[in-house]
């Protein structure tokens, strides 16, 4: 059974579905997946994300997380400890002044035994590489470090899934890299299901599956390689494609045979080397 499942999910902020923010969304996310949800502002991607742990409830349809219905009040706390959420603004999600005390916030709320909290806090900080900063003032950290603390704060709940709503939008390149590295690690080493909401195509390219949203609907849902082949379509809905993909697109126009789906630096180097080698061989 799917870990997160939306069934005919529709949503309007004022309950009037004639101008719905989400229209009939049916997606299934399995345990251990790394899914990116890509879309421009107003495409409904953040609204969708807020349905995945019960911050918003469907106007129509149903969302289940690990078999629990998000509309079920009784299950809410359990849903939230199963699927944690990281937000865009690093400042506005840190509750306590000191790093480790902030990380302890969720398990404290859950009434977990203090010794166990200690253990979880230490482990969580270790996982995101912030152990060194555990007694630091959260306010003095860089944006990337704050987001890692926010992630650690969720890890301390031992969630099965982490949803990240544009976690890097307000960060500098260094911070973005730190956060992306942490996210990948959580997925590959801790087997945590990741749902990454973003408008950066290079971040989406790191996922194993990309869902493209436009006007409240799912437009594409496939592997990054397949999704970025649709360069024209993505551009038409206001999204970027990786430079490499665009280069392949242009080279094809010049009758140079290249694969369409090239999304990383390394792949691009390999492909270009092949083209250049080809000529040497034919000579």
């Amino acid at each position, binding site marked *: 059974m799917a870990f997160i499942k939306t069934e005919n999910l529709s949503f309007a902020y004022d309950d009037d579905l004639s101008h719905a923010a989400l229209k009939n969304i049916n997606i299934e996310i399995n345990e251990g997946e790394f899914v990116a949800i890509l879309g421009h*502002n107003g495409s409904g991607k953040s609204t969708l994300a807020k349905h995945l742990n019960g911050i918003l409830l469907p106007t129509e349809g149903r969302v289940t997380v690990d078999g629990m219905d998000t509309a079920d009040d009784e299950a809410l706390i359990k849903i939230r400890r199963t699927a944690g959420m990281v937000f865009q603004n690093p400042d506005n999600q840190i509750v306590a002044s000191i790093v480790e005390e902030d990380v302890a916030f969720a398990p404290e709320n859950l009434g977990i035994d203090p010794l166990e909290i200690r253990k979880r806090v230490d482990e969580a900080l270790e996982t995101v590489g912030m152990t060194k900063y555990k007694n630091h003032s959260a306010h003095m950290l860089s944006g990337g470090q704050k987001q890692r603390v926010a992630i650690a704060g969720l890890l301390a709940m031992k969630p099965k899934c982490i949803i990240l709503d544009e976690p890097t939008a307000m960060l500098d*390149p*260094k911070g973005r890299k730190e956060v992306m590295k942490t996210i990948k690690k959580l997925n590959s080493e801790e087997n945590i299901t990741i749902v990454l909401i973003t408008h950066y195509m290079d971040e989406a390219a790191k996922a194993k599956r990309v869902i493209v949203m436009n006007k409240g609907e799912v437009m594409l849902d496939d592997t990054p390689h397949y999704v970025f082949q649709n360069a024209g379509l993505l551009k038409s809905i*206001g999204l970027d494609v990786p*430079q*490499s993909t665009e280069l392949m697109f242009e080279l094809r126009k010049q009758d*140079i045979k290249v694969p369409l789906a090239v999304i990383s630096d390394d792949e691009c*180097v390999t492909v270009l*080397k092949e083209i*250049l080698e080809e000529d040497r061989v034919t000579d």
Partner: protein
Amino acid sequence: MSQIEVKNLSYKYGVGTPFEVTALDNISFSVEKGEFIGLIGHTGSGKSTLLQCFNGLLKPEGELYIDGVNICEKNNAKGICFKVGLVFQYPEHQLFEDTVYKDIAFGPKNMGLSEGEIKDRVCEALKFSGLSEEILEKSPFELSGGQKRRVAVAGVIAMRPEILVLDEPAAGLDPIGRDSILANLREYHKKEGKTVILSSHNMDDIARNCEKVLVMNSARLEMFETISEVFKRSERLKEIGLDVPMLTSVFEELLKEGYPVNSGIYTVEQAVNEIIAAKDGGKNA
């Protein structure tokens, strides 16, 4: 004389406290009227400090001439904020009036202009920001994020600065928002011929808009050269914690492995030409 002349400019925060930090360390360069300059550097490299020196918010040591006037000297900094318009990061956070019109008019009003003049300037600034006149009577707080940002930029353009300085104007916007605000800027630069200085973390934005780039690193000026010269030194850029466009890295790698391509490639168009040239070159060889 150049429009902006910076000579041995230094700035320290927290002088005399244990937290003293050098934010600018003996910087010198000059900018001609009408240039579109990019400013890059990692967080904490001194970028924002430099921007705030331009319009007199900070008082640095050294000399900073704007149109021949050294604004580091006492009494010369007065009114400089109208001549050098500074758009802060996330400028929409400074909107405060109850209508868009009043907010854009705030700067011109502080300049002591007449109502008629203010009105002209508000309309002109609005046009540059690509917004329609209908929103003038709306509250800035009911606009979308991208619109708010443009209103805030218009508020600075309305002061008709000789030099427009922007600190990460596209930060946090999605590709549509980013492209449209940068397109507006290009348009403004082309039509008005005013000097624009643009700070950004996004190398593609810099590559697409600027003629020359100031590269800051740990309070020092690392480079001040044309775009392609700067991207030719991509190794160094990476060393000082900066990104380079994807294709720049790719071609650097090809060059390293002995393929006949140039370095300093940063657009798709350049890359296509490079590949075709290299292929042809290969055939001729």
